[in-house]
Each structure stands twice: as structure tokens, then as C-alpha cells.
């Protein structure tokens, strides 16, 4: 269970408050969506959960299964099972995709005191998943995300997610840059990862993605906190009525 309690976050050396008392609980096995107007702090929330520099937590707590996330380095949070699907995945020139992913997977395993995954097992798993996500096999040999289209990069995020099998997933605007076919493939991948042991937080501006990944709860992020919550139908209402009612 992810528990966020009274979270206050500021940027610009603490000068500019973005989140001002956000509280949220995502129990294991549930998928929650965060919607909201641009600039409400949706991406800020994803970066604070994953430990990016430049976001000052001035108050509040965040725990995953009882462990204090805010006290951990980004790589420790990853090893604890937090995965962020980036809105804009980075290009890593010179580092082949498979090398990157194998290094990441084994670094996580090592941090958890588990045995490293051997190359043959890793390759077998990667090839099977790539096929499932309809990715060209040569994509895995190329430097990570270099020269990939927007849609290919998003598919690569899902591929990494399926390889790493995290226990809490944050998806930041995963639908942006995807056409309908790619969206369906990505959503199928995500839906396969739904499990009683895994929570998900889907951050999105549009309701479209939620037709494919149906959430258990939908929250509106506005004015620095959760302004309203509802079920999957609530997302459709928001799409029709807009966020004006919740804006500052």
C-alpha cells in the first residue's frame, strides 16, 4: 500500500509551493488515476515519489508497505519496487537497451539480496516480452531510446516495466504520443501487470487512457492536493465538464 500523508512540496529552492497537503492511499491490487489541469503538480507528484532532485519535501510522509520512501535514494526506491513510466523517456546514447536493462535488473536484485539473473534467462524473457509488445527485435540492440519515435519510447517504458516487475507503478502521461493501436498494446501490457500484489497510479490529463486501463478510483489533483475523488465513471464526467470547478 502506498500512503501519502499531508505532502507539501516546493520547487525553486523551496520558494514555490506546488503540493500543499496532498493525502492519498493506494492499496495493493488497486489502480488509481490522477487527473487534473495542466500545472496542478501531477508530474511533480511522480518525481517526488521517485526521488528526483530539485523537489523539496517541506512536510508530510510517503510510505510504501510501511517503508519511508522519502528517506531513500532514487535507486533504493527502485529496488523497493517503485517504477516510474516517464512522460518523456530519456535517450541514453552509447548504452545498448539490453545492457541497460540487465544492469538495472541485476542492480535491483543485488540491492534486495537476491541472486542475479543470468544472461540466457534474461534474453529469453526479453525476447518473449518484446514479441508480446510487438516491438522490433533490433530495438533491443540499439542504444536505449536513441532514434525511437514517441510511441516506441512509450512502448519501451512498458517493456522495462514488464521486465523489472515492480510492485508499485507510477505512469506519467503514458498515453501522450501514442496512436490508438499503440495505446491498445500499451494498455494490454499494463492490464497484464494488474495483480493483487501491485498498486498503480496513473497520471493523465485525458480520460482516453482510462477506457483501456479501467481504474478503481479517480482523483482530481488541483490547488496542491486531492480536490475530489470518485470511481471510473467520475473520469468521464471530468472529461465532459472539465476541471474549471476545481481550479483555483
Amino acid at each position, binding site marked *: 500500500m502506498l500512503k501519502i500523508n499531508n505532502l507539501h512540496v516546493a520547487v525553486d529552492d523551496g520558494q514555490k509551493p506546488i503540493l500543499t497537503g496532498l493525502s492519498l492511499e493506494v492499496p495493493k491490487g488497486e489502480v488509481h488515476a490522477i487527473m487534473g489541469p495542466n500545472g496542478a503538480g501531477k508530474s511533480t507528484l511522480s518525481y517526488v515519489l521517485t526521488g528526483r532532485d530539485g523537489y523539496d519535501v517541506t512536510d508530510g510522509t510517503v510510505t510504501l508497505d510501511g517503508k519511508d520512501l522519502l528517506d531513500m535514494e532514487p*535507486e533504493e526506491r*527502485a529496488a523497493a519496487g517503485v517504477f516510474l513510466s516517464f512522460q518523456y523517456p530519456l535517450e541514453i546514447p552509447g548504452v545498448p537497451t539490453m545492457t541497460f*536493462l540487465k544492469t538495472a535488473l541485476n542492480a535491483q536484485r543485488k540491492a534486495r539480496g537476491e541472486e542475479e539473473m543470468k544472461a540466457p534467462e534474461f534474453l529469453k524473457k526479453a525476447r518473449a516480452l518484446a514479441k508480446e509488445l510487438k516491438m522490433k527485435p533490433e530495438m533491443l540492440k540499439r542504444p536505449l531510446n536513441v532514434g525511437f519515435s514517441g510511441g516506441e519510447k512509450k512502448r519501451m517504458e512498458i517493456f522495462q516495466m514488464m521486465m523489472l516487475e515492480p510492485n508499485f507503478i507510477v505512469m506519467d502521461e503514458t498515453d501522450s504520443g501514442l496512436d490508438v493501436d499503440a495505446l491498445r498494446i500499451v494498455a494490454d501490457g499494463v492490464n497484464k501487470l494488474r495483480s493483487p500484489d501491485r498498486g498503480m497510479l496513473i497520471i493523465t490529463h485525458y480520460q482516453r487512457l482510462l477506457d483501456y486501463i479501467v481504474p478503481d478510483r479517480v482523483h482530481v489533483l488541483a490547488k496542491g492536493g486531492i480536490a475530489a475523488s470518485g470511481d471510473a465513471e467520475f473520469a468521464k464526467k471530468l472529461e465532459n465538464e472539465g476541471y474549471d470547478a476545481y481550479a483555483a
Partner: protein
Amino acid sequence: MTHMPLSLKTLPNRRDEAWKWSDVSRAVSNDVQGADTSAPVQIFVPEGVTVTRTDAAATAANDTSLVKLASQYAGQVWNIVVPDGFSSENPIQIEGLTNGHAQISLSLGKGASVQLVEHYDGQAGAFVNSHLNVKLAEDALLDRVIVQTDPDDCVRISTTHVTAWAKSELRQHTLAFGGKLSRLETRMAGMGEGVKATINGAYLLDGARHCDMTSYIDLACPDGHIRQSVKGVTADKSRGVFQGKFHVRRPAQHTDARMRHDCIMLSDTSEIRSKPELEIYADDVVCEHGNTIGALDESALFYMRQRGIPLAQARAMLTEAFLASVFDTLEDEVMRESLLEKLRAWLEATV
């Protein structure tokens, strides 16, 4: 030959334009080991290549003071001769060069092809000054690899003159870790049509190490093809210097010459000095230079850490990926892998 004591006045200092960032006279004291002695030299050659020793040739008036010093103190010249049409799986290896002065001449006959591997691993506190004079006859190919692993209190000057005749080719890959002061200088004269050169190098510096990669490519004939990529990383209080010049003379039409110097500063107390230059008199040429200095991409580092890769490992991976491309053009895979191993070991210990 008169043996005058090495005079600090003879050594270039920062008032010499070509040495303004590599002040040799400041780095060397009169009593440094090797100041006025000849260097031990070991040369291993494949069968068919000959090595002889002859008296030193007269130096030219326009030689640098260090080349003159090498001629004065090296004693005899080592002459390596590779006959016409020669080729071998085995390289020429130059070892030794641990302190003192050396003069070596290497001549490749028409159509000859050979690999030259030089390992610079000097003695602690020593001064090493070597001059290599290379002649490439028509269609000759020299595949040169330099690995410099001097201790941090060693001063090393390595000057190479290459005279390249028609359709000959120099492929040079250097991996350097600097020293108290090191200058690896390559001066090439393209004297025939269709000369090709790849002059790539990587320097990795920590502590207070200094490495200077200087090159001067002088093209006098048409259809020259030059590719140069030097990359560096500087940590702690180290200092990297790159000076590159392409001099394209009026007859050197259709020259295609590209120079790049890119580096990453791993600390804000390190220093990088760079002077790329083009001097062009021919009007139908493609010449360019590029120079970048930056830091590791923070966003890329965060991305890698978010996937579970610890910070130090992420930094090492990004730095290796950045540097490794200068060795992509090295065809000898075993050699390339051994250079990358050294590079990785440094990154593991430093980054």
C-alpha cells in the same frame, strides 16, 4: 656532440604560444631523472621488419626545442624499416621509454601495412622525451595504438612527425591517463594525393594530472580525408588540453577534414583548454571543427537511477558510453576490448 646540461631556458614555457597551456619548464627541474640521458628502448618487430641504430641526423631549424633535445641526448637513432608490400598479423611494439630521451624512425615501404603499439609507462618522477619520425610510402597503412599509463609525477613529451605520401593512411588511437604533465603531439604532412588519416584519442584525468593532445595536419595535395575525434573526462583538479589544427594548402582541393573535441567535466575544479583551428587556402574543400564541454546529463542519470542503477554505476556507464566511440574505428577487436577494459577500470576507481 656536446652534452650541455639541460637548461630550463631551453624548455618551452607558457610564453610560447604552442605551449601556453603546457608549461614544460615549470614541470621539470634540472635534476629530474632522465633530463640528460638516453632512454631505454625496447622494440619488438614481426619477422621481415628490421631494426638498426645509426647516428642522429641533424635537426631542422624549425624543429621544436624538445625534438632538438631528443636529438642531443638520445644518442643514436633507432631505425625501423618495413619493406614494400609487407603485412603481418603481428604488431611492432615499442616499450621502455621510462626516462630520458629517445629518437625512433619508422619507415613503411610502398603498400606496406603494419600495426604499431606503443606503451608509455614511465618511472616515478622521471622526464621522458621521445621523438618518432614516420614515413609512409605510397599506399602504406600504419595502424598505431598508444596507451599512456604514466605515474602522476612523470613528465612525458611524445612528438611524432608523419610524412604521408600518396594514398597512404594513418590510423591512430590513443588512450591517455596523463601525468604530472604529458603532451602527445602528432604532426602530419600530407605530401601526396588521397592521404587518409583517423586521429582519435581519449584522455581520462584525475588528481592533478595533465594531458595535452596536440595535432597539426598539413595537407599539400588533393583528396585528403581526415577524421579526428578526441574525447576527454576530467575529475578532481586535473587539466585537459586539446590543440588541433588543419592546414589546407592551395593545391589540397577536395580535402574532406573533420575535427571534434568533446569533453565532460566530472568536477568543477578541473580544467579544459581547447583550441581547434582551421587554416584553409583551397576553395573546394569540406572542413569543419566542433568542440563541446559539458557535464553528465542529470536527467539521464535520474532516469538510470529510477531503474535501479546506483549513482556511481550510472555515472560510469554514461561516461564509458561517451568515451568509447573514439575506439569504434579501431579494427583490432582484441585491442579495442583491452583499451575499453583499462577505461572501465579507471571509471570504476574514479567516477
